[in-house]
């Protein structure tokens, strides 16, 4: 049908344009890191250079910010993952109005502007004479990142067969053993994903960090202040590195996913074949 072909073509064009719209700015930003021009640009192209990378490497303040960012991210993971997991397990066993209420409280930080989270965190802990700093940034970020972890784990909990817990209890396991050997292994994919999400969400957080960091830098704050004060393509160099890491991570994930998919299809087919083979002799014997 002609109409269908045309609409398909239009869609494909739309997708291509959208992808370009999404990815081209990143290309330009990365490209400026390689251009020997004081002001980050791709045109006019002066010449290939790596001096911006060198400058980046020698930028002590950047390294401090980098270290701080990683530290905060690890702290956030260390807090958000246990909290989110515990909250998911808890809310899963609660019903009725209590569940809706708890759920509402847990989701609220996600729907709250980062600035508000940052300011309220700053004010609240200031009351206990806790000064602003990276620890406050970690706490502020955890308030909403834990919710992401909770959602992931809660979703995974839905596919958990409660009978497994009962079977383990019935066989004599203690509660701790049940959680450790039966429940948590089932949740590991969600917990792993949650940890990854927590880490990256923390690294890229800006709004909350801005208000809670005190005098400390994180990467996002550092980039922000550099852009405001006087940019050179060193920022682009940093951007290019981060984009490249992201792309490599994406490729690795895609390859792993494809391999896992192929393996899954193969073993499912195998199980089906074996099941059919088993049924035959029984059918014969029962005659």
């Amino acid at each position, binding site marked *: 049908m002609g109409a269908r072909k045309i*609409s*398909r073509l239009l*869609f494909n064009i*739309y*997708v291509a344009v*959208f*992808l370009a719209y*999404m990815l081209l*700015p*990143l290309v*330009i*930003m990365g490209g*400026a890191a390689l251009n020997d021009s004081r002001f980050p*640009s791709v*045109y006019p192209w002066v010449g290939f250079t790596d001096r911006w990378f060198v400058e980046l490497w020698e930028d002590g303040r950047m390294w401090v910010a980098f270290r701080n960012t990683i530290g905060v991210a690890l702290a956030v993971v260390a807090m958000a993952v246990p909290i989110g997991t*515990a*909250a998911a*397990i*808890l809310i899963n066993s*609660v019903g009725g109005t209590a569940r809706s209420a708890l759920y509402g*409280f*847990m*989701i609220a*930080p996600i*729907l*709250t*502007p980062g*600035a*508000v989270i940052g*300011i*309220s*965190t700053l*004010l*609240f802990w200031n009351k206990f004479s806790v000064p602003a700093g990276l620890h406050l940034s970690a706490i502020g970020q*955890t*308030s909403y990142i*834990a919710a992401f972890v909770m959602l992931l784990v809660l979703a995974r909990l839905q596919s958990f067969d409660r009978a497994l817990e009962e079977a383990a209890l019935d066989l004599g396991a*203690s*509660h*701790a053993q*049940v*959680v450790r050997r039966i429940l948590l292994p089932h949740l590991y994919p969600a917990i792993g994903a949650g940890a990854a999400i927590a880490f*990256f969400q923390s*690294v*890229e957080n*800006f*709004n909350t960090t*801005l208000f809670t960091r005190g005098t400390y830098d994180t990467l*996002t704050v550092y*980039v922000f202040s550099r*852009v405001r004060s006087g940019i050179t393509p060193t920022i*682009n160099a940093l*951007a290019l590195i*981060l*984009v490249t890491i992201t*792309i490599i*991570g*994406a490729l690795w*994930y*895609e390859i792993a996913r494809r391999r896992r998919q192929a393996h899954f299809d193969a073993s499912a087919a195998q199980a089906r074949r074996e099941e059919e083979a088993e049924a035959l002799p029984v059918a014969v014997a029962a005659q």
Partner: protein
Amino acid sequence: MSELLRRYGAPLTATFAALTAFWLLALVVLPYLYLFENSFRPYLPVVDVGGPKDVYSLDNYLTFFESPIHIKVFFWTIIYSSIVTVLCFAIAYPLAYYLSKVAKSAVVPTLFLLLLIPLWVSEILRSFAWFIILALKGPLNYGLLGLGIIDQPVRWLSGFRSIIIGLVYTYVLFMLFPLYNAIQSLDTNQIEAAEDLGSPWWRTHWRVILPHSKPGIASGAVTVFMLSAGSILVPTLLASTTSRWFTEIIQQWMFESQDWNTGSAYAFLLMLLCTVFVTVMMRVFRVSLADIAK
């Protein structure tokens, strides 16, 4: 509670409850309450805090309502955030439909991956990228000049248009994914049935697909609006003298004036705005809070 104890025993239940309580109380509820309370107290030097001058009043809020500039900025922030939300929807919807119904299923994960790259690259870099592009001597102007569409470089970084462009780019994906999920869950047979009954494509969308996607639209709209209204990076980087964003005023109070009390009042106004928006969306689209969560 008894269900939990039965399932996990007392010590584990206590652990779960303690962690959850710490999160919800110390990290969420109490700080917000304190923000609210603080917004009614005057900005005082440390020695006077708790003393006779420390009375509750609406002064901080009056500062806002008596300042025509601040009211105007608040107003524009709402308007432009709404525009950004609508634009994001307009751009994302066709793509969401394509990904969930038209594209071959083998291609979809790869496409998603490509789309996720800008998301993973982080907001600051997304904003920065457009800062470069929209510069007076930037590639956009060069491209347009080169193509002959314009004959003089356009000052993109003026007024609100750069902010809108930046915000749309930065947050459009947050509209795309909820929309995708919502459309995905629609049984394709329904679309085919509508077609079979003679419905033209636009009517099928209007009467079948869009209504079904309401939770996704609400979720995406809430997310984009909240992120836009509360955005600091984009409006600051891509701003000009004629455009101010409400978050910038909050920053002023907090950092330049060090007046945390007025700052918290303004922050609370921002939070109020977002809460009102969420509630309105929930009513209009008749969705619940659970639907909005990813």
